[in-house]
């Protein structure tokens, strides 16, 4: 098992090394190497995952230590992997979605230069992401954590010749790095206080040493939260994700929708024991999640670029996951992570096909009527959109959002207020999703698509869409009695939630969320398809266009950060390029030059002056000897 466990991260790492060092020319060879090693990782993950599910090992975890990384001064950091239900879930999702998207990229990137570089970066990303979710200690997790950030930077700026892409890439790296720096401080706090970074013993020690709500636990949890907020693009560090869409679309699908951006969710779930010691931090998680959800959903509603709509949607959906984490609904949050990885990945892959077919057109209002032209893409995206909007019974996975809503209602940390906000978010979700769908696939054809999409691209798209729509079956089956449900599986590594409020009968909450979703779809139908004049009349109100611009720009966060941080930093760096401290250091030199100029005047060549100087000196010397 140790071998298979380590194969999961090391296979794509080998792919990276081969592609980076060998410098292959043949595109076929590059594609085969990248896809087969990503596939090997998927096979290994499946073997390990299945054997874990069929025969859960002692202690409910596989451990695999390969060696020691750092050992000094009482500090030991091993190269160790830890596979429990939580990491099994993540590693399976990452390797599955990752393999599908690597296959999709084979055709998608076919015309681009830097083919080998692209797959090298993708392989490095998969290796880092697997390391992140499998690491048994926080420092190794951090290695994967920064590694995925690096790959995100490299891939957003993949088409490096355009400085816009470069700026987006740097922004993503820098903003997430702010979270990373806080996280490193958190790591150091934890290791100095608890003596280890190995997650299981560390959390156990924290639970035994720190009382509930102790300042150390709170500070540590908040520092970890800062890291999570950066990586998962939550308030106030969400600004990088919409710009990250500058990267190739498969990158947006894999890194900026399905996997990397959910690393923050993983981190909080992984450290749930620590977060439960810090109720303030958990409350912050919930509130940050719900506020991000609402703001990002509104921003998504104001975008015209299809990828930016999906990016804001991702931010919002991760907001749901954070909300669920914050109220202690661990399993519901992870459930939504899995389904989101599939349906959002599918939506992005579909968007990539549309953009390519329409000759790099990103504006959804310049698309239209594509239902008949690209029926396969339409079908898959519709399935994914229904899942995103959570509409039963057209998708089986409606329950992933409903479960979050229900648990927010019943949790001791939740309540009607958070629930109400989350329901409002569900309405907005359905609205912006079907705004996109109606604009792109219905109405008149505005741009004719060129050519049919390749099978290598449509198959991964359909697979992800169907996985997303059917993933809910696991929980549905268990709800109707019988098989082992998702909740039961997650209970192997996460505690169940404590409910304090009656759900009011499951049907009441279920009915509310279905009605809200239907209302969202209906509004989208009315506003964007049936009566388009309504919107025009709405836009005529004074101030609306300004509000729309403000919303489209993501509520001015960029402007604030630009004014307060970026510009002053640049200004000082530019003005001080010659270094004011160097100027100080040069003062002695300048002073001696000045003295030199003064003294050199005395060397005038006039004998009388010299004689007077000698005489004056003699007098002073005699005077000194006499009176001292």
């Amino acid at each position, binding site marked *: 098992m140790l071998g298979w466990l380590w194969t999961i991260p090391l296979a794509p790492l080998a792919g990276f090394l081969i592609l*980076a060092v060998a*410098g292959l020319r043949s595109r076929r060879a590059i594609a085969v190497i990248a896809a087969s090693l990503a596939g090997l990782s998927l096979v290994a993950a499946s073997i390990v995952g299945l054997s874990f599910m069929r025969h859960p090992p002692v202690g409910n975890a596989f451990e695999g230590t390969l060696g*020691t*990384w*750092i*050992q*000094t*001064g*009482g*500090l*030991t950091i091993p190269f160790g992997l830890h596979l429990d239900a939580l990491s099994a879930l993540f590693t399976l999702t990452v390797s599955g979605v990752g393999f599908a998207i690597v296959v999709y990229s084979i055709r998608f990137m076919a015309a681009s230069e830097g083919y080998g*570089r692209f797959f090298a970066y993708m392989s490095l990303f998969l290796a880092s992401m697997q390391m992140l979710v499998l690491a048994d200690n926080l*420092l190794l997790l*951090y*290695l994967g954590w*920064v*590694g995925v950030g*690096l790959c995100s*930077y*490299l891939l957003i*700026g993949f088409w*490096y*010749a*355009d*400085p816009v892409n*470069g700026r987006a*890439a*740097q922004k993503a*790296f*820098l903003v997430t*790095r*702010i979270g*990373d*720096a*806080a996280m*490193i*401080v958190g*790591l*150091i*706090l934890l*290791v*100095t206080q*608890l*003596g*280890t970074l190995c997650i299981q013993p560390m959390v156990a020690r924290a639970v035994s040493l720190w009382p509930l709500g102790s300042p150390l636990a709170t500070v540590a949890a908040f520092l970890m939260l800062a890291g999570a907020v950066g990586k998962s693009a939550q308030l106030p560090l969400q600004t990088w994700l919409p710009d990250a869409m500058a990267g190739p679309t498969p990158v947006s699908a894999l890194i900026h929708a399905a996997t990397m951006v959910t690393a923050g969710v993983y981190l909080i779930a992984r450290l749930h024991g620590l977060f439960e010691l810090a109720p303030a931090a958990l409350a912050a998680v919930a509130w940050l999640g719900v506020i991000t959800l609402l703001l990002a959903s509104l921003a998504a509603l104001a975008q015209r670029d299809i990828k930016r709509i999906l990016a804001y949607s991702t931010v919002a959906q991760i907001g749901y996951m954070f909300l669920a984490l914050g109220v202690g609904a661990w399993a519901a949050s992870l459930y939504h992570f899995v389904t989101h990885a599939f349906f959002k990945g599918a939506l992005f892959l579909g968007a990539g096909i549309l953009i390519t077919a329409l000759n790099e057109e990103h504006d959804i209002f310049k698309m239209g009527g594509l239902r008949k032209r690209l029926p396969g893409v339409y079908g898959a995206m519709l399935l994914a959109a229904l899942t995103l909007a959570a509409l039963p019974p057209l998708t089986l996975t409606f329950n992933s959002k409903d479960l979050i809503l229900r648990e927010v209602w019943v949790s001791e940390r939740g309540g009607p207020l958070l629930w109400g906000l989350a329901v409002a978010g569900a309405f907005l979700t359905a609205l912006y999703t079907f705004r996109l769908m109606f604009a792109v696939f219905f109405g008149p054809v505005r741009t004719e698509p060129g050519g049919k999409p390749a099978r290598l691209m449509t198959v991964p798209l359909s697979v992800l869409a169907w996985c997303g729509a059917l993933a809910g079956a696991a929980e549905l089956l268990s709800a109707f009695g019988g098989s082992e449900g998702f909740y039961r599986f997650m209970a192997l590594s996460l505690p169940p939630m404590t409910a304090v409020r009656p759900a009011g009968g499951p049907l009441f909450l279920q009915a509310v969320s279905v009605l809200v979703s239907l209302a969202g779809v209906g509004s989208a139908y009315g506003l964007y398809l049936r009566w388009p004049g309504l919107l025009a009349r709405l836009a005529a109100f004074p101030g609306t266009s300004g509000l729309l611009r403000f919303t489209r720009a993501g509520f001015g966060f960029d402007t604030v950060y630009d004014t307060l941080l970026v510009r002053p*930093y640049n200004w*000082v*760096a*530019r003005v*001080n*390029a010659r*270094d004011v*401290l*160097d100027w*100080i*250091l*040069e003062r002695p*030199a300048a002073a001696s030059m000045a003295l030199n100029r003064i003294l050199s005047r005395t060397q005038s060549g006039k004998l009388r002056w010299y004689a007077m100087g000698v005489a004056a000196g003699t007098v002073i010397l005699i005077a000194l000897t006499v009176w001292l």
Partner: protein
Amino acid sequence: MILFVLLGMPIVGGLLAWVAGRVAAPSARWVALLSTVVYLAVVAMLWTAAPLELPVPGHWIARTDFPWAPSLGIRFTLMADGISMLLLTLTGVIALVAVAASWRSVTRLVGAYYLTLLWTVAGVTGAFVAMDLVLFYFFLELLLLPLYFLIAVWGREKRRYAAIKFLVCTQAGSLALLVGILGLGYAHDQAFGFWSFNYFDLLRTPLSPAMQLWLMIAFFLGFAVKLPVFGLHGWLPDAHAEAPVGGSVLLASLALKVGAYGFLRFLIPLFPESVRQGGLVVMILAVAGILYGGWQSYGQRDFKRLVAYTSLSHMGFVLLGIFSWTELGLQGAMIGILAHGVGTGALFAVAGMVHERTGTYELARMGGLWARLPRLGGATMALAMASLGLPGLANFVGEFLVLAGVWQAHPALAVVASAGLVVSVIYAMKLIQEVFHGPLAPEVGVIPDAGLRELGLLAGCIAILVWMGLCPGPVLRAGEPALRDLRNGGGAVEASPDWERGAP
């Protein structure tokens, strides 16, 4: 005796290279290359001879000792422990990098160039093994003078200004150091009735608090200019920018390390009481250097000046680790010294390679070079990532250990210093963006990508960084006994010892 051989190798090699250069210029390169290879071989022999990993206190693996100026108590004492061994290894690697990096770019006075280069190496070698303070001072001077000539003769347009600035600043520091050393010898004479400059004698010399403070300040000035410590760094960017590639490599990777070594080996053990009082000030200066160096680096418009300021930032981490005087901090500082030596040396070599192809160091005239130089771009990306402390590469291990060590002494300083992680990302990304990304600069013609020599040099450096980043165990274990000795010989800032003992 083997240390004597090690010291003689670059001196003799330099002379031979000079002679060879008078006969035929290219042969000087080969002589220089050969002598650095032999140097590395001797270091390797020392390693195999040394049972360094035994945690025996007071462990010195080699010793050469004979009287030099007996009436003044000056002896020619060379000794090496784990710290010296690590630094000697770095010296050998960097000498190789410097020789290889200047292979094609130096065409004038080739023999004399390699003479100065190798004599600098000799000075560094001596400084790392001298256990008599006057001898240490002698090697310090031996190291600075050839470097001065390297800058003044083979430098760029403003080389005279930069060289004189370098010499005046470092000599002013050295003067303070010399006064300090003489003062210590005098104090020894006062206490024991005879002069001695032997390191171990001086460690035992009792000092009045005032005397200790003044001597500490004198030593501090000497080493602070060389490191350089924040505020005294003005000479650094100029010297780097104007020096030839080999000079920049030696300066960044070796000469600065002598300053760090001085703090570690001499200043703190000799004046523990004063350091305990004033250490916090130095640590604050170190944090200021980390942030200021990174910030300044970002503002530069010249490739080499940008890299030069990153040195200020990285050496800030090293200084911070040393003055934390905790086991983790010291280990982190050692890793930081080695990582910065290899990584920054390689970055300066990259600057030289880019200059050979574009004829400029100005960032504004570069851009988009990835299209022409993908291999060089990939290597630079790896080095830039090392510089910003990517986990898996050596700098990260150093920075993490330093921050953990500093946390034990002063948590607030660790928090502020961690902002350095953000600052470093900004300059590293700027470097990549301005040189390799963006649209291709119009004046760049058809230029060849990195050849075998250049690729080998960079790949070797990156391999060392990866190895130390993933497997720092051997380095940590080699330094451990020596660092423990140092800490037992005198402590600076009290650590919280219970954690070190308590946790597994």
